[in-house]
């Protein structure tokens, strides 16, 4: 279907306000662009303003003997128990990311080589848990990992008796891995499906064994996708509350639990906000690093440089 008009992309009344308009004039030239203000207003009031308030509170709201502009940050970074919690969170996030990659990479890879029907099924199997309720999914793990639950009976049957799975970081890692697996598979699949598989065929025809071709040709091309998927999982684990709250215990809590405890139990908004901003900064650093590495990596591919 083709429409023959002298199609410039200009709207009917775009010509009316030419010249060097101010921002407001430029926006009002197209009434449709005015539509952006309402959603922006909502985000400003209910998202940006709250974050700014937290930022302020982290420097001004103190409890106990803490004081000084950076008091809350110094308290968090200088308290042993808090640093233990942060280290534990990193350890759990690292394990969860690794487990997700081990389980998710083969799955995402298989999705790129099966037929369309099979792929639809495989996408469905990922999307259903992706959109299922986090609390419900974690609750299911509470039942599975209980001392008298099915997993323990299974372990008992094969002779393992003294492995506690609930109330420690083992349970949190298992649950978080299963909950976050879709967040790795979906971006990884998107990246992997963009890899030209004829390169593998070329490598085969040049005499490379399949395994060698996979490691030397496919995996390097998959690195950006792997980085994207793993960084998302890592970041999400840092901010995880419900899974550690239900599968872990207060004795080995993670940083998100600490934020909730400070704010809703101790009403220490300043301390909670300080922790939150440390987590936020870590999040941005991880995202920034991944972006930087990916860009460098891509560029070195394009220019054909040796890595």
């Amino acid at each position, binding site marked *: 279907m083709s429409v023959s008009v002298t199609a410039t992309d200009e709207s009917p009344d775009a010509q009316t306000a030419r010249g060097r308009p101010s921002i407001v004039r430029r926006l009002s030239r197209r009434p*449709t662009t005015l539509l952006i203000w309402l959603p922006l207003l909502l*985000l400003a009031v209910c*998202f940006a303003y709250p974050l700014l308030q937290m930022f302020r509170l982290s420097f001004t709201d103190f409890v106990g003997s803490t004081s000084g502009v950076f008091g809350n940050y110094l308290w968090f970074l200088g308290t042993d128990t808090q640093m233990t919690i942060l280290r534990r969170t990193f350890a759990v996030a690292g394990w969860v990311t690794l487990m997700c990659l081990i389980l998710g990479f083969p799955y995402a890879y298989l999705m790129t080589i099966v037929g369309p029907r099979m792929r639809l099924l495989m996408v469905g199997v990922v999307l*259903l*848990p992706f*959109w299922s309720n986090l609390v419900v999914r974690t609750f*299911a793990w509470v039942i599975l990992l209980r001392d008298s639950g099915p997993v323990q009976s299974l372990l008992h049957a094969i002779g393992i008796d003294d492995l506690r799975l609930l109330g420690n970081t083992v349970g949190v890692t298992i649950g978080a891995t299963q909950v976050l697996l879709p967040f790795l598979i979906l971006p990884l699949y998107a990246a992997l499906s963009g890899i030209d598989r004829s390169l593998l065929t070329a490598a085969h025809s040049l005499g490379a064994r399949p395994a060698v071709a996979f490691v030397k040709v496919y995996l390097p091309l998959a690195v950006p996708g792997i980085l994207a998927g793993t960084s998302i999982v890592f*970041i999400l684990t840092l*901010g995880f509350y419900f899974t550690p709250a239900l599968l872990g215990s207060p004795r080995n809590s993670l940083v998100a639990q600490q*934020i909730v405890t400070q704010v809703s139990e101790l009403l220490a908004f300043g301390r909670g906000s300080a922790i939150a901003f440390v987590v936020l900064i870590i999040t941005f650093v991880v995202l920034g690093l991944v972006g930087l590495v990916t860009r460098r990596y891509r560029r070195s591919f394009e220019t054909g440089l040796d890595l």
Partner: protein
Amino acid sequence: MNTFKWSSSRVLLVGFCGLVGVLLMGPTLIVVPLSFTSEKSFRFPPEGWSTQWYENFFTDPNWYESALLSVRVGLAVAVLATVLGTAAAVALSTGRGAWRGPANGFMLAPMIVPGVITAVGIYYVFLNFGLTQGFWGFVLAHTVLALPFVVVAVSASLNGLDKALVTAAWSLGANRWAAFRQITLPLIAPGILTGALFAFLTSFDEAIVSLFLSGPFARTLPIQIFQSVTADIDPTIAAASTMLLATTGFFMVVLGVITVSRNRR
């Protein structure tokens, strides 16, 4: 399209992925048989069957009122987020200039900032506004979180739209609103519907912000489930979980049908 060839390593791969598939779907589905258990325990597999936990769900105000609140909030969020998100997507796609990049980034920011951080901020501000433990507090907070999904879904539709059709309508004398209503809107309707469903699901499943906004007078279904799990052993949790999963599953099927039928066209 090369066809799938079997080899010994492929058999291994498919077997492994089968297990991963089971791991993805299986554990969550355990709540379904558990919701029909006859005894007041989480013993699995159940010894006998009953529907008493569903009866309990629909007669205990703690449960059915939280479910009702979740549905009402979800519907309001679906309307509000879809209208605002569609407006934003249209403005972003028709607008010119350097403001678009930052505006788009700002629209998607609630997706990137960890939920627990957004939650603390919203809680503090809403405490001052007197918006905690109330319908509108949940609606506003969830709309913020749902907005990015609508913007993404509608933007994708608008990018696929042939702009020449709109220009043609203009050249035939249609004013901007008429062209939007009669040309653009019908063509991006699937994107808007997808966005609306995502908005509802986002609100319906949201838990961390709701945890802060909830209280004795108002809590959403996920929070009611969370607090029951930490409080006592009651298979009503399993019944509520099953219904939550069924709702999500239903919406996923609808979304799947929309996507498949759109790709056919």
